[in-house]
């Protein structure tokens, strides 16, 4: 990497689907500094989720180069350890496991680490308390409101202390009031933990909160 302070460096990144008929990413060049809060906007289908997936190594790009937190993500290897250590995903839908309690859902990412059993519980509950969910640790997700579920999902994303949080429309399924609470939480985390935050949103006023706004259009930054 050229610049030590860049946690993400992407050059001419391309990703096509259906044998190149759809170019979800069509030459992305992007550098993001460690601890930066970047908002990602663009019309539906412009490639926002695809870009996030590339940064989180959920999928591999076809062309170009992408380095995240010191990992070359164009390598043909398994990046589960990278995801476990460096990335916290938050999705539009909470995607919690319905038969596990709130606390257990937050512990799931730690099963891939060597954290001891009791320590897992402690850490999960501590994070849940900081998210004002301490009174809900033993509840099943089905008993929670939408905003509460998303807070649990945030807890799950944070529990392994990632260096980057990738939030793909985290308020998309919430009413604006609840959404604002979630955004406030994310901004607080960003400030306190000095974590890099990339937030996909459709709301211009949300995008304004970020250090930097990026607009995507047809797989390119405009």
């Amino acid at each position, binding site marked *: 990497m050229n610049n030590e302070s860049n946690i993400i460096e992407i050059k001419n990144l391309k990703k096509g689907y259906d044998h190149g008929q759809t170019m979800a990413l069509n030459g992305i060049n992007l550098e993001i500094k460690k601890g930066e809060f970047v908002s990602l906007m663009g019309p539906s289908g412009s490639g926002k989720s695809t870009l996030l997936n590339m940064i989180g190594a959920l999928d591999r790009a076809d062309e170009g180069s992408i380095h995240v937190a010191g990992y070359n993500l164009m390598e043909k290897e398994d990046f*589960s350890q990278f995801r476990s250590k460096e990335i916290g995903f938050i999705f539009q839908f909470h995607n919690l496991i319905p038969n596990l309690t709130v606390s257990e859902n937050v512990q799931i990412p730690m099963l891939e680490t060597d954290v001891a059993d009791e320590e897992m519980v402690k850490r999960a509950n501590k994070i849940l308390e900081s998210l004002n969910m301490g009174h809900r640790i033993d509840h099943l997700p089905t008993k929670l409101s939408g905003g509460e579920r998303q807070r649990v999902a945030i807890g799950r994303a944070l529990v392994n202390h990632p260096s980057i949080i990738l939030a793909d429309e985290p308020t998309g399924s919430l009413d604006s009031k609840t959404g604002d609470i979630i955004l406030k939480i994310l901004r607080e985390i960003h400030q306190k933990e000095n974590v890099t935050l990339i937030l996909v949103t459709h709301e211009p006023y949300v995008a304004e909160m970020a250090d930097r706004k990026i607009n995507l259009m047809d797989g390119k930054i405009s």
Partner: protein
Amino acid sequence: MKFRSLLLKNITRNKTRSSLAILGIAIGVATILGLGLVTNDLAESTQNALTADAADFSVVYGTTGGGGGQGGAPGGGSSPGGQQLINETKVTEIQQISGVSKAVGVLRTNVDLNDTSNSTSSTTSSSTTSDSDGNMGQGGQGALQMMYSVIGIDSSDLSLDDIVITNGTAFSSENEVIIGEMAAGSLNKTIGDTITISNQTFTIVGIYETGNFQDDSGVVMSLDKLQNLTGNTGMVSLILVKASNGTDATSLAETIEDTYSNELTTSTSLSGMDRMNNGLEVIESASWAVTLLTLLIGSIVVVVTMVKSVVERTREIGVLKAVGWTSKRILTMIIGESVVLSLLAAIVGIVIGVGVVEIISMAQIIPGIQPAFSPILFLEAFLVAILLGIIGGIYPAYRASKLSPTEALRYE
């Protein structure tokens, strides 16, 4: 949270589906276990009755052409009505025929041992019917009366008649007899007890088994003694013949029939041992077939259950990958779940299997079946279950682990 508690929680998630799968596999395990219990028992009792040097065929009085060949097999069927005896000199003669390894004379008769005053029924040609049904009617002493076979044979030749001593020793004097397992049970006699036959008292020195119901309800004594007792000195009912190694028993039987065409006929039906062995082989291969079929069905149940469960959890598996789970852990989780499912099924299956076998043996639906419980059999049931879990889990687990995380997260 422990990984294993996650497995358990995932199984209890869809209770109906898991219960049905458990029941399906459990029935399979129960079938395999039940078959094992029953065939083990059969094999055990047959093993006791295995006598490698049993006779190949028997020779009885009769002409080859008319109605011959219905003579009892060694250790086998009832003595034919109007039984004609054979002079013992024939035994010596047949022994001389080349290809005969051994020829042994046997005298058989039926007696009602419950009624001690009764004498042996006649074994001469003048006697009417001597099969048990006939005697019951004849005796007119009610249905409870039961006939027992009395067999006279030299104690050194017992194995030729498929007689295996399971307890005690063979008779060594004229006053000693051995008693069949069935007779011992129904007469409540054991070694050391005495028994009265034709007003003479004998000491029981051994208990034997032939694997043949009729012969097991009988008493065996020395040939000389039975000849004395029935007034048939020098006479036998049948001659047991064993062919020497390399001699074809069937052609040997034909040779004997040709030599004595107007006097003797042979019964080349299978010996008791062969019949039993054949039966056991059939049962064993049938039980193998059922076992394999059950394994096949069981693994299909596991595959179907787990594939459904994986498909249902597609998004969730995407999330697990997103939070850093390796493909290997996802593979382990799904196989683990199917193994836990199968182990639960094994427990249920053992309970069902043992229960059904116990009921069958208690209700005497199949007489003589005594379930042979052994730790190995239960271990086998568990191994079968683990195997089912792994085999049935491999494909769904592989599918889950190979899911593309982005595809999985887009799954509706």
